[in-house]
């Protein structure tokens, strides 16, 4: 009951706060070292085949994101940054207000061509090209993140999302190029029942306690000619301890290590992006081990007809088990149009054609079993930022 009340009042509170700050603080003196910004986006999804974020077979508005962030430059070498976020995405995310990031950024070294620093607190993990700002419509290519590489629908997003720990960052510049290195070491944390439900579906009720142990994220990003070309290698290594409350289901551990190769070419009117991901998972129980490899990749082309009007197309390929490729593969085809009538507003219209079950949120389809092998989604999303 307490939890219900909390949700009931927090969601409108965030929306209200976003509107309030948008109307008042954004017009504060931007010359100060304390700034507030935020975003709000509301989606509509209509699907055929399966539900995606709410009851989208009948049309769903159960997809919205809102966040407010603040940065404070205490000194040239010390910044503080924090963001709270509320995300509602069907049954996969319930709109609770969460601390998205909150950290102190200490830049310990800076020369003409290089720099090094640390961030302490809750930091976003740099993983692939889009993970660290994936919940902001303005900083992702389409309404739904690529299911390949970013696994938006099936619960992995929670594992990739953010770490409570320490992040080391550094860069080296030359005349034309810049290279960034980012390493995050997170501390142990318990996973909430909601995250377990997204990950394991009905089996989640068998899990009594789940602990995420010392996650590691690393990214090496090489940016050529001021960002015209970008190449990145990202890596993660996580360990999960699952304790069962059932005598039929022994305790188990899950080790996951993943790699992402990313490449992007920016031209005057075109942007081409490709990312490849290999995620290896190993379940260990008293009864034995099971190793599984998830492979995914996408190719994306964006064409700017005008600076404020962009067309996007993307092909995604996902294999949930490399040893069983033909039965676990999925293909996603995405077409989208984006209109940014002003820097503060964005309107996206996307169409998704999905073959296979990869990326389809199981928790949205409990009453729609079995999950169909074919899904079409039409979606519109409007976003505002300040």
């Amino acid at each position: 009951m307490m939890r219900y009340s909390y949700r009931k009042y927090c969601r409108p509170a965030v929306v209200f706060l976003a509107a309030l700050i948008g109307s008042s603080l954004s017009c504060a003196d931007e010359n100060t070292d304390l700034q507030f910004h935020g975003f709000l986006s509301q989606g509509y999804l209509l699907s055929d085949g399966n539900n995606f974020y709410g009851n989208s077979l009948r049309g769903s508005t159960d997809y919205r994101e809102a966040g407010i962030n603040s940065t404070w430059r205490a000194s040239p070498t010390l910044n503080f940054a924090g963001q709270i976020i509320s995300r509602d995405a069907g049954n996969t995310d319930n709109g609770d207000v969460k601390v998205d990031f909150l950290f102190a950024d200490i830049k310990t070294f800076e020369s003409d061509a290089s720099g090094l620093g640390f961030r302490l607190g809750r930091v976003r993990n740099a993983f692939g090209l889009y993970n660290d700002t994936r919940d902001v419509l303005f900083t992702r290519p389409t309404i739904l993140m690529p299911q390949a590489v970013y696994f938006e629908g099936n619960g992995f997003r929670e594992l990739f999302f953010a770490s409570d720990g320490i992040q080391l960052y550094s860069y080296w510049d030359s005349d034309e190029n810049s290279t960034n290195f980012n390493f995050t070491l997170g501390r142990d944390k318990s996973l909430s029942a909601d995250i377990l439900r997204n990950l394991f579906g009905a089996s989640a009720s068998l899990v009594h306690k789940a602990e995420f142990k010392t996650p590691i994220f690393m990214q090496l990003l090489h940016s050529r000619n001021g960002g015209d070309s970008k190449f990145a290698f990202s890596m993660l290594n996580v360990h999960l301890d699952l304790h069962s409350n059932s005598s039929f289901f022994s305790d188990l551990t899950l080790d996951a290590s993943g790699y992402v190769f990313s490449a992007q070419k920016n031209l005057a009117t075109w942007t081409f992006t490709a990312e490849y991901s290999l995620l290896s998972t190993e379940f260990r129980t008293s009864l034995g081990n099971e190793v599984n490899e998830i492979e995914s990749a996408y190719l994306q082309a964006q064409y700017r007809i005008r600076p404020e009007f962009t067309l996007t197309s993307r092909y995604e390929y996902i294999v949930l088990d490399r040893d069983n490729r033909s039965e676990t593969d999925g293909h996603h085809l995405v077409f989208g149009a984006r209109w940014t009538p002003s820097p503060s507003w964005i309107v996206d219209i996307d169409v998704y054609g999905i073959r296979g079950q990869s990326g389809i949120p199981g928790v949205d389809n409990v009453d729609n079993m079995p999950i169909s092998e074919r899904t079409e989604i039409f979606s519109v999303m409007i976003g505002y930022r300040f």
Partner: protein
Amino acid sequence: MSALFILTTVFSSYSHADVVSSEANEAGVMVIRNADVGSGELKLADLRAIFAVRKRRWENKAPIKVYVLPDNHGLHQRFCKSVLKVYPYVLREQWDRLLFSGTGIPPTTVGSEEELIALVNATSGAIGYAAVDTQKGMPSIEKIPPKSSELESEASTK
């Protein structure tokens, strides 16, 4: 290469203005700085690091404050293409990533070129850009009265 060479030539405006500028490049754009950060050479890599907010301090350790015009402003686009040699949308993506991951504070966007020059004039550690008045061959910086108190109040009402 020519742009780099031009940027190394520092031009000081007349005595009461607190702004120094590089000489304009072939597109008629010059980089301007508050005089208190010195007039040392800024290479392409320096400018890219400053406008991408990787570099946060001047050589004298003072914080760098970057001022820019809106993305769709003609001068901003000329600056991006001819001085930084990046597409404006690529720079915007970099700034948005900083903003929404908390890893940096993007430059302050101001509404007009006059306001930008005035703020660079009035703000310690500031950097921005301006278009050269080709008719007079002199930067428009000189037209701005350097009354910092007025300028600050103007900025705060923006």
